[in-house]
């Protein structure tokens, strides 16, 4: 038995590790919150989690540290990435606040809560640490296992039930039973005719646009881009490139050159800008 000192300290190495990795973890957390794209958030979070795993290990929670890496970083974060991929990128990715005062209130509450929490911790008498050595004497995993299958066996069982329920639940939620036969192409075209919308196939991308990449909207005869020509997913991700202004400028330049060649009055070069550029 150790007689415990008032100030239990860790090794210098651990301290160094804490300050360096802790800083990175906080930065990772902040990036999780403030990164615009969900994918980046997910990656930052994964980084933070790995650091946390290191901290678990440093605290003598070897089993948890490994589990953290395997289950959390490995499985759960991957699940997140899958969903991000499934859902795609939406306008929700914007950091622009839509609810009046929400951001300020949130930051205020967050700051207040954080300060209070830290103050509470500072006030608490947490100076005495027993150290984990004694508990881990017979091996961390064994220690956990003996507790898990004796003292916490009920909770363990119930957690198992919960996991199964969750798995079933996720399946029920995501699985869609097809209740009717899928419509054939004929039926779909007939439906379009009946409704009188888009009887012909959707226009192809890149038409009149000098490019024919899928992310470039086809241009209508007046030079404006048509939304219909690009895939919905690209549209929602905001990954559509608009070249209409370029095309129009090119056209204009061509006309100007023709005028020069024909020695007519020079026409002022008009510059067309993309709508979003113009609005800036």
């Amino acid at each position, binding site marked *: 038995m150790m007689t415990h000192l008032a100030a239990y300290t860790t090794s210098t190495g651990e301290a160094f590790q804490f300050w360096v990795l802790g800083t990175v973890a906080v930065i990772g957390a902040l990036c999780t919150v403030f990164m615009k794209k969900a994918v980046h958030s997910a990656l930052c979070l994964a980084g933070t989690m790995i650091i946390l795993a290191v901290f678990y290990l440093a605290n003598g929670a070897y089993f948890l540290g490994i589990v953290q890496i395997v289950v959390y970083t490995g499985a759960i974060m991957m699940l997140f990435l899958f969903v991000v991929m499934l859902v795609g990128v939406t306008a929700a990715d914007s950091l622009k606040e839509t*609810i009046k005062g*929400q951001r300020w209130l949130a930051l205020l*509450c967050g700051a*207040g809560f954080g300060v209070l*929490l830290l103050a509470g911790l500072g006030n608490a008498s947490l100076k005495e640490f027993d150290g984990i050595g004694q508990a881990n004497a017979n091996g961390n995993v064994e220690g956990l296992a003996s507790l898990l299958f004796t003292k916490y066996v009920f909770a363990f069982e119930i957690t198992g039930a919960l996991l199964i329920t969750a798995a079933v639940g996720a399946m029920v939620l995501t699985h869609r039973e097809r209740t009717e036969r899928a419509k054939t192409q004929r039926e779909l075209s007939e439906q379009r005719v009946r409704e009188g919308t888009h009887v012909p196939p959707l226009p192809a991308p890149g038409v009149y646009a000098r490019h024919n990449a899928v992310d470039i909207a086809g241009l209508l005869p007046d030079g404006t881009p048509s939304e219909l020509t690009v895939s919905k997913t690209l549209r929602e991700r905001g990954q559509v490139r608009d070249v209409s202004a370029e095309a129009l400028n090119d056209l204009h330049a061509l006309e100007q050159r023709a005028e020069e060649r024909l020695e007519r009055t020079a026409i002022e070069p008009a510059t067309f800008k993309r709508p979003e550029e113009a609005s800036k």
Partner: protein
Amino acid sequence: MENLIALLIAAPLLGAAVLLVGGRRLDAVGHWIGTLLSFVSFVIGVVLFADLLGKGAEHRTLTQHLFSWVPVAGFQADVTFRLDQLSMTFVLLITGVGSLIHLYSVGYMEHDERRRRFFGYLNLFLAAMLLLVLADNYLLLYVGWEGVGLASYLLIGFWQHKPSAATAAKKAFLVNRVGDMGLSIAIMLMFTTFGSFAFGPVLSHAGDASEGRLTAIGLMLLLATCGKSAQVPLQSWLGDAMEGPTPVSALIHAATMVTAGVYLIVRSGAVFNAAPDAQLAVTVVGAVTLLFGAIVGCAKDDIKKALAGSTMSQIGYMVLAAGLGPIGYVFAIMHLVTHGFFKAGLFLGAGSVMHGMNDEVDMRKYGGLRRYMPVTFVTFGLGYLAIIGFPGLSGFFSKDKIIEAAFAKGGTDGWILGGVALLGAAITAFYMTRVMLMTFFGEERWKNQPTRSPEAPSAEPAAEHQGEHAEPHPHESPKVMTIPMIVLAVGSVLGGGFFSIGDRFLHWLEPVTGYSEGHSPVGAWTVTGATMVCLIIGVGIAWAQYGRKPVPAVAPRGSLLTRAARRDLLQDDFNHVVLVRGGEHLTRSLVYVDHTLVDGVVNGTAAGFGGLSSRLRRVQNGFARSYAVSMFGGAALLVAATLLMRAV
């Protein structure tokens, strides 16, 4: 015998009930029923009078207890009647003059389709007035007091289709109500002072109470008197009350009801005797009104309004006398009785003139009527002589006594009051002579001109069958109208002498009112002489102004005083500006206040909650994140609270 007292009241009350509830079936005979019941009451009165005369002076008080009216703990009001010499005098005056005027009205109201109702109201008035004078306690008196007010209201507004009549009626009732307030406060004061308000306990213990309370009671009774008897400052209703049919003016607004105030003061003599300050106030009010009424009477061209001013002034004399205490009570009542005769006579005469003149009331459109209506002229003339105090006629005796008594009050007060009374006599002589001259003498100004005065578009229905703009054909009134006038004229000639010679009236009333001989600083004959001089001066001036010169048919502009007097010395204007306008503003602003402030506070509270909840509703915006912020904030607060609790 006592049991007859209730019948005195019951007879006219029955008449009123039958006539008013009976409906049109009684139209043909209604007026005769009313007159008959009035005479029945008079006959009962005479029988009771004879009975009283048969008893010794000390046993002339009869009481009749009918039933307990309002018994609540110490507050015991009974319906009990008391007939003593004072009440008896009034009973005879009321029923006597009342019956004559009923008779007169049969003729006067002949062409009015609502004559039955008129007689019903008249009977109602008689009943209420008799109740007033026969009551044994002040609360019952109050019933009669307001009852006559009601009858007066109904009769002034009898021609309700005329807005002026309706307004006058309302005004009379309202002004009277102010006075009634005084009476009711007086009764409350009596109750707190004596634990009773019956005449017996109050009057016999008046001496035991503190003077302050008695003064308060006296002043409140004075307020009541001012209202009912048209004394300054509550006199303004009387002139307007002339909108009523002339018999009403004669009965209610000359002979009986308006004298109720004098009755009240004389009846409460014991209270006033112990409260000199209140008495002084009474004399002051009397003196002021005496002059006020007389001055107003001088300026009016409307014959009835001139007479109304005169009434006011004469009642001023009575109130003055009543304020003098035991030296004046008897004379106040005596003047009241003689005034009842001659003023009723004068009004009936005026009514007769109007009857013959297509209901013209403007004296400037009369003139020289003595040739056309001799009976009216003679009776009116006798009444005139009586009122100005022509020696030997009734006014001479009664007014002279009052002037004497005023001087007898002694001190500076006595000189002032006596002087005022003398001055009043001179003015009385002036304005009555003026009325007389303008009406019966001089040119016949009514010829060659339409007479329907614009103020009274459809005045008295008696004229309805005549052409709109026909020249009047003055004519004598029918017998049924002239007989009462003759009887009243006889009364005004002989009454004073009959009462005064041998001090008959004094001996009759003394047991009730008490009497003490005043010690006048001037001799009785000096006063008489001075009165005569005043009279001659007054008559002389009037003659110079209206007898020798022709009277212009359109009133000249006149002096400032004349113009003010024509407008009732601006009292109505004052009332209008201060009370009517002020009241209108007050009520209007209160309506506003009630709507915006009182209601507004409540509605505001409601709106406040409404606004608060609609604000709060906005918090429930449906955004999960907003809710999350609240939860998070709540959690922060909880942490804070926990820390705080631990810190404490």
